């Protein structure tokens, strides 16, 4: 059933990247009858090759090809070559994600209109609305099996959630529950029920958590129209004299360089690799990179306003038992500038195993004061803050021509400075998180700086006007009609929600659009 297409077959759609965007899009196109070549830089793992071991899994799954950083964010100091904690493996970061599946709010598509008085932010309304997306949000939730939708119950909360719930309700919060998670409470759609392993980030060994690796991709293979090529690193998008995309040059597992011809090219390499590929594809026709007549490729990189708060209690919590994102406080997601910032944020439980906790609780810290905190590990509860960050043109992915990767291509440099709105939100959220744990009886609370980014957004934004962004409401680039952006790079603004559900939603919608345009011979 698995297809094999010839490199010269120019009737295929080539997709770069097999995560939430690319894996989902491949499935949607195959179901619509199109032939797809799916290029994935990483290897194909499976539930049986995943390890419940933080460092082993990091080395097995994470994107470790060199990158550089700049800017005032602390990640640049603590992890100068690791701006993002995302994956290089079939399934992309859906192998690593925690499963939180939240819809954007209506106002988050209209930040230019709704957020006033924010200077220095490159706010822009999305060229689409929540209403337009709602039918596809529903399809995405059904496919992924999101709890508290489609009559799927919520997951049972673990100890970490119990602490969050009690603290949050005592602190006055009203909307606190075990979330909207793409994790099966009970077996469904060929996937098992959750075993509460506590290793969501390391690849879910039970398969209860949705990942394109064992849902969208094998289903697409079953159509006989998907040719998945792991260990295939896209190097350049090629084009003809008229400027139309003609295929993708990639290095295969043996290092051999191959051009796969294409009818349509879709990029879903995450918000760092997607703009890097466009910039590395510069030619005499497109001297500033593909799809970059606006100059916007790589700009407005967003990573969410994040941070964590850990509470230390007198009695054991064992937060590491069970789902990592076991529950959520939704009250702060609202738009309420009276708090001193625009945009909203979620508070979601998080836990790290001891090996990662030692590295991330306060990166670089040492000495007895720090080890005293670590010794409280069994008595800790933890939450992650995830909120909308402000797009800024100067936060951007550029090519670092001083540093080359294993293919001799310039690596991506990721520059990020917090906007004052981001700082105000984070400081407010730290205080609220501490208040939650104090209400539950914490003897100490610890504010933890942002980890390397797991939510990487923007850099090829959707815009109504071609000079203001890289792609239109379908993810189709303004400059090249058969070149699409199919991942979180499309996001005009970041919203306050974990982005995967919206990436999947946009991919399902884009899949229908591409299929329809192909049927009409417009592509």
């Amino acid at each position, binding site marked *: 059933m698995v297809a094999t297409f010839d490199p010269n077959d120019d009737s295929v759609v080539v997709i770069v990247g097999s995560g939430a965007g690319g894996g989902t899009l491949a499935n949607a196109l195959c179901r619509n009858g199109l032939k797809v070549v799916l290029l994935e830089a990483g290897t194909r793992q499976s539930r049986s090759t995943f390890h419940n071991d933080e*460092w082993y899994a990091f080395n097995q799954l994470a994107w470790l090809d060199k990158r550089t950083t700049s800017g005032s964010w602390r990640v640049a100091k603590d992890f100068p070559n690791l701006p993002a904690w995302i994956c290089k493996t079939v399934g992309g970061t859906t192998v690593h994600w925690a499963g939180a599946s939240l819809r954007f709010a209506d106002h988050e598509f209209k930040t230019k209109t709704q957020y006033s008085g924010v200077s220095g932010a490159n706010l822009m309304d999305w060229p689409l609305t929540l209403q337009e997306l709602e039918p596809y949000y529903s399809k995405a939730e059904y496919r992924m099996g999101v709890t508290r939708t489609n009559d799927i119950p919520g*997951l049972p909360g673990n100890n970490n959630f119990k602490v969050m719930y009690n603290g949050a309700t005592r602190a006055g919060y009203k909307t606190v529950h075990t979330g909207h998670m793409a994790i099966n409470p009970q077996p469904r759609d060929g996937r098992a029920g959750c075993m509460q392993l*506590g290793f969501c980030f390391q690849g879910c060994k039970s398969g209860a958590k949705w990942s394109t690796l064992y849902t969208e991709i094998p289903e697409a293979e079953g159509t006989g129209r998907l040719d998945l090529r792991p260990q295939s690193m896209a190097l350049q998008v090629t084009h003809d004299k008229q400027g139309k995309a003609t295929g993708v040059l990639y290095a295969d597992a043996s290092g051999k360089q191959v051009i796969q011809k294409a009818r349509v090219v879709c990029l879903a390499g995450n918000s760092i690799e997607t703009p890097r590929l466009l910039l590395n594809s510069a030619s005499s026709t497109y001297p500033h990179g593909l799809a970059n007549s606006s100059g916007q490729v790589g700009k407005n990189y967003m990573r969410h306003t994040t941070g964590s708060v850990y509470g230390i209690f007198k009695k*054991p919590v064992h937060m590491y038992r069970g789902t990592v994102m076991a*529950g959520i406080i939704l009250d702060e997601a609202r738009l309420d500038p009276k708090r001193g910032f625009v945009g909203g944020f979620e508070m979601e439980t998080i836990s790290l195993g*001891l090996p990662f906790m030692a590295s991330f609780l306060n990166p670089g810290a040492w000495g007895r004061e720090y080890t005293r905190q670590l010794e409280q590990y069994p008595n800790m509860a933890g939450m992650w803050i995830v909120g909308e960050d402000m797009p800024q043109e100067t936060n951007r992915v550029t090519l670092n021509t001083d540093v080359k990767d294993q293919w001799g291509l310039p690596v991506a440099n990721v520059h990020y400075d917090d906007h004052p709105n981001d700082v105000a939100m984070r400081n407010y959220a730290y205080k609220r998180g501490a208040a939650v744990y104090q209400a539950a009886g914490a003897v100490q609370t610890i504010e933890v700086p942002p980890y390397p980014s797991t939510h990487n957004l923007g850099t090829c934004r959707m815009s109504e006007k071609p000079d203001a962004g890289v792609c239109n409401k379908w993810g189709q680039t303004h400059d090249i009609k058969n070149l699409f952006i199919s991942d979180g790079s499309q996001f005009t603004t970041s919203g306050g929600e974990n982005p995967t559900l919206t990436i999947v939603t946009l991919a399902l919608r884009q899949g229908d659009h591409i299929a329809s345009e192909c049927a009409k011979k417009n592509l």
Partner: protein
Amino acid sequence: MKRREFLHKSAIVIVGTAMAAAAPASAATGGDQWPTLKKLSPEQARTLLKMARQIYPHPKLDDACYVATVVDLDSNAAASPETAKLLADGVAQLQRAKFDDLTPEQQTVLLVSIQSGPFFQKVRATEVVSLYNNHAVWKQFDYRGASYPFGGYVHHGFNDLNWLPDPPDSASPKG
């Protein structure tokens, strides 16, 4: 080398799964008994062990837990002449200051004075992985590591906390 360089700069070190096994407890207490050393001298290893104890001090952990860090540093030194020189020079500097004979408080003061340098950073970045990725250490922190082999926590206490009330079903269904 690229990978190694990247990992070092990111304060992240690949840990061999055999790491814990490579550090027999007998090596910890026997002074000059460092049978597995490939590059470091026993004297260098002893100073590094004392340094490791001061960087992430846990009174409850015995020396065997810290030996893993020294064994990993030794492997790095054996694989890279640059690392070997970095460690040898750093240890020599500590020994000139009679580091081994200082009180823990004095040792900490000395380490603070070198904490931004590459020698200290190399040892710390190695240790934060070698020490806390050790099964013997996990036991002391009530951390169990892999849960799949025993079926996860769904029947092993994922929601056994009893010092706070249970949330209502609407917030947390029984499952």
